[in-house]
């Protein structure tokens, strides 16, 4: 059973995010912190925890069809493991348009822009380091997601259906 959402609410009204680590990463404090952060931004979080096998992650995401998938990893293997994760998930038709991001300590040294670009090319919608400015950027990303907009957003979000039509036109 995943960690119960700290601010439990009836399911209605709060979009679901699936939060997970990678199969090689046993760290969990980053997952707790990001869960709290996501809840503060209005999400209901399903936290899969550490050492998540790829099949299990795919099965949970395909079944839940969440509003967002967040991969958090701090063991320095995130650039490597993340590529496998996103390619596998994007191969599932129902998840092709699902917003997916990855963040944390993704490499052995500090942020690697080339590796980050590789993850974006592989299918992630956002790649964030664990630096404070990237956390702020992650917060902005969450606020700008479709369905999360307020009247203060600089640009109204595009609904997933509209994007899909354009792509398949």
């Amino acid at each position, binding site marked *: *059973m*995943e*960690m*119960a959402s*700290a601010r439990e609410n009836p399911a209605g009204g709060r979009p679901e995010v699936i939060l997970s680590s990678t199969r090689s990463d*046993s760290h*969990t*404090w980053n*997952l*707790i*912190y990001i869960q*709290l*952060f996501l809840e*503060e931004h209005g999400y209901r979080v399903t*936290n*899969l*925890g*550490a*050492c*998540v*096998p790829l099949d299990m992650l795919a099965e949970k995401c395909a079944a839940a069809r969440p509003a967002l998938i967040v991969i958090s990893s701090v063991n320095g293997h995130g650039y490597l493991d993340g590529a496998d994760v996103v390619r596998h998930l994007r191969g599932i038709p129902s998840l092709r348009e699902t917003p997916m991001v990855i963040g944390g300590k993704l490499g052995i040294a500090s942020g690697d822009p080339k590796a980050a670009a590789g993850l974006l090319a592989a299918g992630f919608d956002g790649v964030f380091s664990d630096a404070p400015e990237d956390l702020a950027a992650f917060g902005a990303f969450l606020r700008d997601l479709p369905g999360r907009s307020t009247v203060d957003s600089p640009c109204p979000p595009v609904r997933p259906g509209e994007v899909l039509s354009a792509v398949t036109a």
Partner: protein
Amino acid sequence: MTGGEVSPAPFGDLVATAAAAGRLVVQPRMGMADPVDMRAGLTAVRAARAATVGTITLDSYTRCDAHDEVRRAMAGEGRLNGYPIVFHGGATTRAMVDSVRAEGAEPFGVQVRHGSAAPERIFAAIAEAGLDATEGGPLSYCLPYSRVPVAEAVASWARCCEDFAASAGPGRRPHLETFGGCMLGQMCPPGLLVAISVLEAIFFARHGLRSVSLSYAQQTHEEQDREALAALRVLAAEHLTGLDWHVVVYAYMGVYPNTVSGAMRLLGDAARLAVRGGAARLIVKTAVEAYRIPTVAENITALEHAARAAEAAGGPGGTVPDTGVLAEARALVEAVLDLDPDLDRALVVAVERGLLDVPYCLHPDNRGRTRAHLDGDGRLRWSDTGALPLPHGSAVRAASRFGSADFQRALSYVARRYDAPVPIT
């Protein structure tokens, strides 16, 4: 049991001898892939100016039974982060340890440290190598680091304990240390840590072990930690009659100070805590804990620093306020023991029902309803006791709504306090 070699003094006896002489045993974490390097590390620990125990820390692949990955690394494809005891085989490990022991006049204890929820192959390798001391537990190596179901970990550890205990003989008394006093290393109120440590020790005893140690990890508040150590010793005495046992303290297992001075002050406080709290052994942390795996020299510095701090600490004793840690730990231990005369079954049911529920633990079997925070004094308090069998009023509200920023502050509390030139109030 193999071989006809003379066994070294049993691990428990070595620690008891040091304790009788008023010396705190200090021990590192240390593991190198190559037996030549591992031997050099053990030799340096033996020669340190302190009463020491040597450690063989196993690599991550060995801990998860990923033996193909071990073979690839040992064939030159990468570097292991510990000693692959299964790969090297009993003869190599035994010869390595024997040669280190032969260099000194005093007996030298060696303990294998790992983190495996299903350690059958590791225990087999330990026995093959003629080693007599290791650590872990059915819950403490399952809930924090793995996805192995608790029922499976319990069954595996029961088998390992019985095989390990059966290796006892003339001059050989196998020793097991509980990791339950640590769990996730941070943010767990002491009553639960003490309870899990005691329950794992009872589990070891029920499965045949006669020499055990009970761990407790240094937390955020020195008086609260001393109260926890007193509680641990009371419950150990009640439940482990007839066994040889001692308490081992772990220097802080959470986010570590960034400065050398902060790190060494924290270690010194851990040594003082161990001595005042009646513990016989301390596992140290080094000045570089926040950054990387230490060199052997950095480990020796830490061992000697801890030993000097322990010498200056005097002896056990001094009373601390009773804030209810013993009552809480006792309530948890008794609730679990009352569930089923078979402790294996009781542990599984206890976790299932949330009678043991580790705050912030993401293991699929952990109920995940409990929460903890730091109060204004830095003491660990329950904000939500979930289904724990504790009296009403055991939980207190955190001063502010405990969001991500407060959580981050709680995780870094010890590091910030020790790194600050002036204590943070």
